[in-house]
Each structure stands twice: as C-alpha cells, then as structure tokens.
C-alpha cells in the first residue's frame, strides 16, 4: 500500500517516486499483543500478515486455531502416521472414535483413493475420483459405499458415502440391530444386510430402501439421546494416531 510517511519510516526498495517521502509500506506483523483484540472483533474472514518466525505471531495463530475449533497441537503436529498408511498396506491400525458418547472403539484398516495428510480427513472428493474405503465384499464400482464406524450397545453407526456431481457426501445412519421389525447383520468391511423378521417377510431387502423405516425404529429408541437418527459427518480429525469423527446433527 502506498502511504505518505515520515522519513524515518521509509523502507528499502519501497520508495519508488521522485518524492522520497512517498513510499510503500507493508502491513504490520500481527501478534497476540497487537492484534488479539482486532481479531476478536473483526468481521473479516482472513488476517494478514503472520510472521511464523515470531513466537508472538505464532501464538496469535494458535489462539485463532482455538477460536476456530481446529485444535491444532502446536506448530509441528504430526499426522504422518496416517499419511504413511494411506494405501492401507502397513500394519498401522487407525482408531476411529465415534463421538464422545460411544463406549466402544472399532479398529479398521482404512485406505483412500485420495491422499490424506491433513488433520481433516477428506475422502469426499471434487476431482472426479471415487472415494474408496476398503470394502472387500462391496462392489467397488458402486458409488454407494458403507462402513461401520462404531457401535453403542446394539446401535450401530454406519456411514454411507455417495458421489454426486463429483462431490462426495457422507450420511451417517444409526441402525438398531435389535429392531423389532428387522434383522441386521453388520460386519465391518461388509455391506450391512437387512432382513425383515419372519413375522414380516423373509425377503432380503437392500439397505437404502429400508433405511427410512429403520429411522423410525431408532427414533423411538432409548438411544435417541445419544445420537440423532440421521447425522451428517462433519469432520474427521487425525492426530496422535487417532481419528476422531465429528458428527453434525441436523
């Protein structure tokens, strides 16, 4: 930005004009001491400029991260364990934690078609690739993929991924394995199988067609206080060799 300055504020290389007092200036480095209040009160989406060589400027970034809820553990957090296992070929098993209410953790050996290094796992994609999580028994060509994320007693949290217009979406469903109307066979890595109980019908029913009915069952269940019957997967946070999946309730 150009601004009239006093001579002592002239900076090298930025006094371009015949009038030596008309010089360019650079924005102030934002620090906790100088900019915390401005950041708190600002309606802006971004701030500039940060100097990561200055501890007080980095402290401001850490503060901003806390405000944003991104929970970065310091400047040099390590998410490389997940990154190294992106093809699912190593022995590393990532833990999936399903909300703070879940009692059980389930381990899966997951891999993605898209490379992931950030703490926010991003298997929905915008580049036309298909999201891929290891499902040996599911049709890899099927654009609807299922995964078991976790369980709370008899309530299973399943996630369906589907690709529409090159953007991946997640929908997480809760399924009550002890539904009075349906038998549900759930194995990690396999498509869930839904069957109506003999009193209803012996026919096997595919999962997507039945899911609304299961919603009705869950909606009346005692577990409703823990989970909404339909939730949108909001984010997945990876650090310290653990993945935390955040569910956003509608």
């Amino acid at each position, binding site marked *: *930005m*150009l*601004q009239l300055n006093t001579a002592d*504020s002239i900076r090298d*290389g930025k006094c*371009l*004009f*015949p*009038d030596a007092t*008309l010089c*360019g*200036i650079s*924005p*102030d480095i*934002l620090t906790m001491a*100088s*900019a915390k209040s*401005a*950041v708190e009160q*600002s*309606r*802006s*989406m*971004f*701030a*500039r*400029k*940060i*100097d*990561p*060589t200055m501890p007080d400027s980095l402290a401001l*970034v850490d503060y*901003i*991260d806390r*405000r*944003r*809820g*991104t929970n*970065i553990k310091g*400047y*040099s957090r390590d998410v490389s364990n997940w*990154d190294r296992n992106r093809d699912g070929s190593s022995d590393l098993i990532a833990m999936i934690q399903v909300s703070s209410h879940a009692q059980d953790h389930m381990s899966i050996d997951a891999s993605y078609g*898209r*490379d*992931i*290094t*950030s*703490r*926010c796992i*991003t*298997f*929905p*994609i*915008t*580049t036309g*690739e298909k999201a891929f999580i290891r499902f040996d028994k599911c049709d890899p060509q099927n654009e609807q993929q299922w995964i078991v994320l976790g369980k709370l007693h008899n309530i299973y949290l399943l996630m369906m991924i589907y690709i529409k217009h*090159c*953007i*991946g979406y997640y929908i997480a469903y809760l399924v009550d394995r002890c539904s009075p109307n349906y038998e549900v066979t759930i194995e990690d890595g396999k498509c869930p199988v839904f069957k109506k109980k003999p009193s209803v019908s012996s026919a096997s029913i595919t999962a997507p067609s039945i899911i609304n009915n299961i919603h009705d069952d869950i909606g009346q269940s005692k577990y409703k206080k823990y989970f909404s019957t339909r939730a*949108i997967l909001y984010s997945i946070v990876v650090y310290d060799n653990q993945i935390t999946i955040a569910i956003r309730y509608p």
Partner: protein
Amino acid sequence: MITLGIQKLTVPFPSIRNDSVDPSVLSIVYVMLVHHHPEFVLRLIDALDEPMHSFVLHVDARANSVYAYLSTKLQHRTNIHFLNVDRERISWGGFSIVNATLKCMRYAWDKQLHFDYMVDISGTHYPIKSNYYIRKTLAATPNKIHLDSMPMKFYPHMFQQFVECDGSMHRIARLPIAKGINLHVGNQWWAFPKYFVHWLLISQLAKDYIHYAQYVAIADENYFNTLFHNSPYCDQKPERNLTLILFDR
C-alpha cells in the same frame, strides 16, 4: 496519451447465478502466492482444506527450496496444484504479482477446477473465522465481489513508468494517465465469484489493460480493482471485509 475504450459487447458477459448456494458444499479455489516459510504454508493449507476446495500455489521463481519442500510435502494431495512452469520472479510493487495471480487463475480455469468462489491469499494469511463461517458468508451472497477499493487519487508525481529488473522496480519515465478508464486502487486480496473470474479471463478490456498496468507502481493494488470498476458488474457494491490488515505506521 493512452486510451482504453469500453469493451465492445461482442460476446455475452458471463452471467451471475440466480440459484442459491448450499454453504455446506460451497467450493473455493484458493490462489496462493508464496515465497517463504513453507512450514507455515502447510499449516495454512491444513487450516483451510476441505473436501470441496482446491488450492493453486505460485511459489516465487527465486524460492526453489520453498517450491521443492512444498511440492514434496503436498505431492499426494490431489486438490493442491502448483504452477511448475513460468513461475514469476516477484518484485514488491511489480506487475509480476498480477501475472502470478493471473496464471493461477488461468490454471484453475483450464484445469476445470470446480469452484463457486476464487479467493486470493498469500502464504502469510491465516483464516480467523471457521471454514463453515467462510462458506456460509460467501454462500449468503453468492454473486458478491469481495474487494476493498477506492478511486485512485491523481498525484502527478505518482504517475511514473516502472520496469521490474533484478528483483526491484526501476523508474524509467513519466507515465501518462490512462484515459477512458476509471482507475482504482485498493487491497490486493480479493474473493471473486466464478462469473467474475470468467470475465477476467475472457474480457478484452482485461487483456488490454495489462499493457498499461504493467508499468504502474504497485500494480497488484491497481489491476483487479480498476477492472472491477470498469466491468459490466461495476454497479455492485463490493464487500470490504475479506482480510484484516493493520497499518499502524
């Protein structure tokens, strides 16, 4: 005397969208100019990265170690792109900044990266609002141009013709004031909806104005601001709260 005429209406202007945008899927291409602190650039990208977004990075041609570090660290993230040819040697106040930005813009367009908004940031930016807030704000007015600009004051001694050489600006002559175009200056950083990016890439005025703006000092604060105010969309009132910048001196 340099005269830049109003663009002839030989092709339809890109039209603004009349549908609503779901903030949960609003897509952004972040154009980033980077020249140092690559570890912090990684942190910045991690802070902004979401499934629907892409990044196009221009690393200063003189910062090869930064380029090598970032391109290695980010090589497996398919939504992060690098300009790897014709990188600019950036000079403070030079048109090289505009050129680098335009190259990123062209790259994103040619690669058909999906986006509703393109946002121009640097490696020393940081988001101070959540990603959802950013998406929600942009989706609320999906045709809004985010740009902080004002009419250019005509200080005669400012109109000097510059060339970039050896990493700095050199004054070589007086520069005539352009006629037929309303010159504006302002903040370098912007967020443009897709239709305006499209217009910048196809507009004859945008091409012609390069011939003048390349000699203007601090062209990055002039080029996009001037073009917006001379575009078919100039009746918009741009949003001015994109980036918090403090000048205390």
